[in-house]
Structure formats: C-alpha cells, structure tokens
C-alpha cells in the first residue's frame, strides 16, 4: 500500500519537476524538423571555440578555430594535429605568409586535401619570442562544398 502511494507520488512529481524545461527543444527535435545542421559549434579545451561547417552530405567543408587565449605556433600546431593529423592533409603544396609587423600577420598552407589559414598577433607574446601568437585559424577541405556558403 505504502509502495503504491510512493510510486503514485513520484509519478505525479516528476512531470512537475520537468515542466519548466518541457517546452525547450533538444538537438534531435531541430534535426527532425530542419534536417542535418549546416554548422555546429564546439567548446574544446583551453577555451577554444571550434565552428564546423558541413556540406549537403554532412561532410566537414570548413572549420574555424577561435582562441580565447592566443597560443604560440608550437602549441597551436598540437591542437591542429589533433583536429586534422598531418597524414590526412595530403602532401604540402605551398605556403605563403604576409606580416603586418614583427609578430602580426596571416599565413596560408596549401596541402593536397586541405588549406589551413591562420592569423597571428602580438597579443600575449612571451619575452624573447620570435613569432607572434595564433589567434584564429580556418581549415578548408578542398572539393567539399559548404551548405551555408550562399548564406554568408
């Protein structure tokens, strides 16, 4: 008898507890309605925001990394290797760089399958450093067309 009452009470209380959130959708609700997302944003380690853009088929076409804390090239390359390992990029074709000061500039490295562009600045550069810190980077997958390109 006591058990039956407890179960009834719990089943009455549960919907009440969830009521304020019941009207806010989850990811699958949006996907059921609008199909696959055209882009997603992830918070990865060290306060880095990673925005990924997809093609019609759901493949990654572009990825933007925004660094809350500017990082020296060596530690930034470790993050880059985690996202797109060297063996997945194909052969390096060429690279170019433009500097706007001793530490600030943009650079682009072209590989067979991807192009990686990065922006560096003098922000938070350590004493004695010879290069600027990376503040953002964009990876483009060659031959994969983004769905959102026409909306940008």
């Amino acid at each position, binding site marked *: 008898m006591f058990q039956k009452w407890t179960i009834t009470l719990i089943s009455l209380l549960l919907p009440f507890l969830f009521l304020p959130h019941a009207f806010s959708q989850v990811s699958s609700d949006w996907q059921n309605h609008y*199909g696959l997302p055209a882009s997603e944003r992830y918070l990865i380690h060290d306060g880095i925001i990673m925005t990924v853009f997809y093609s019609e088929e759901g493949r990654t076409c572009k990825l933007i990394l925004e660094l809350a804390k500017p990082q020296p090239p060596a530690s930034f390359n470790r993050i880059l290797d985690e996202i797109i390992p060297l063996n997945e990029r194909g052969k390096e074709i060429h690279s170019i760089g433009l500097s706007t000061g001793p530490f600030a500039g943009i650079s682009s490295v072209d590989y067979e399958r991807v192009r990686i562009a990065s922006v560096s600045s003098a922000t938070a550069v350590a004493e004695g450093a010879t290069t600027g810190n990376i503040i953002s980077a964009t990876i483009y*997958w060659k031959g994969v067309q983004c769905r959102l390109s026409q909306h940008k």
Partner: protein
Amino acid sequence: MFQRSTSIIIVLTVLFLSLPFGAAQMSGDWRKHYGPPEAERYIVRDAITITVFYSGEGRTCKAVIEAAKLQPPNIFEDLLNEVTPPSTRGKRVRSIGLSSSANGLGVREYERVTISLITTAQGDAKGVQSATIQWKEVQCKSPKQN
C-alpha cells in the same frame, strides 16, 4: 568471370571517387571527440537560418533566427510560431518597443521565453532582420550566450 571483374571495377571506382573526401569528418566524428556541440545552425527557409544554443543538459536555451535579406514581419511571426508555439510560451508579461527612423527593436516577454525582433531599413525596404528567443529557465553552456 565477367561479373567478378565488373564488381572489382565498381569497388575500385567507388574507393577512388571517395578518396578526396576521405579526410573530411562528419558531425558524429566531432561529437565523439568533443562531446555535444554548444550550438548548431540550421537552414530553415531559403536565405533564413536558425542558430540554436544548448545548455549543459542539451536543452535549447537560446535561438537566433537570421535572414540574409530583410523579410516581412509575417514571415518571422510564422517562424516564431513554428519554433516556439504560443501555447508553450506561457502568459505574456510585458512588451517593449524602441524605434528610430531606420531601426527598431521589439521585445516581448512571456512567462517562459523572451522574444526580441530587430527591424531595419535597407534603402526603401524595411523589414525584419533577426529574432532571438531566450528560454528563461535554461542556462546556456557558454556563459556569453546568457
């Protein structure tokens, strides 16, 4: 014999065609590595997108509807009704409107959500550019979005 070589050719062709895209990850690959995303962007209509932000529990805390070109107010009202049907908003608490000659901001506060609309003018055309819905009791994962 002929059938076997045809199958081999098909398998090799498929492998070759998929080669350039082999390195491009799918959404599931990123999720496996970094967990659920804090935001997603969907295409809802031609030139209209919705960006949804999530709480730590994966519930929508905020949604931003943006149009590449100005839209008449009824288009946005339809979208708002689709995203947050009036029956789910709770009672209307208050409405505030601010406008200048070209731009306007309208905020409607309900028991469970707050909806704000931005209207603007481009040349002679005036219309709605974006709308934001915030779910009051759901805290976004990224503090910047709250």
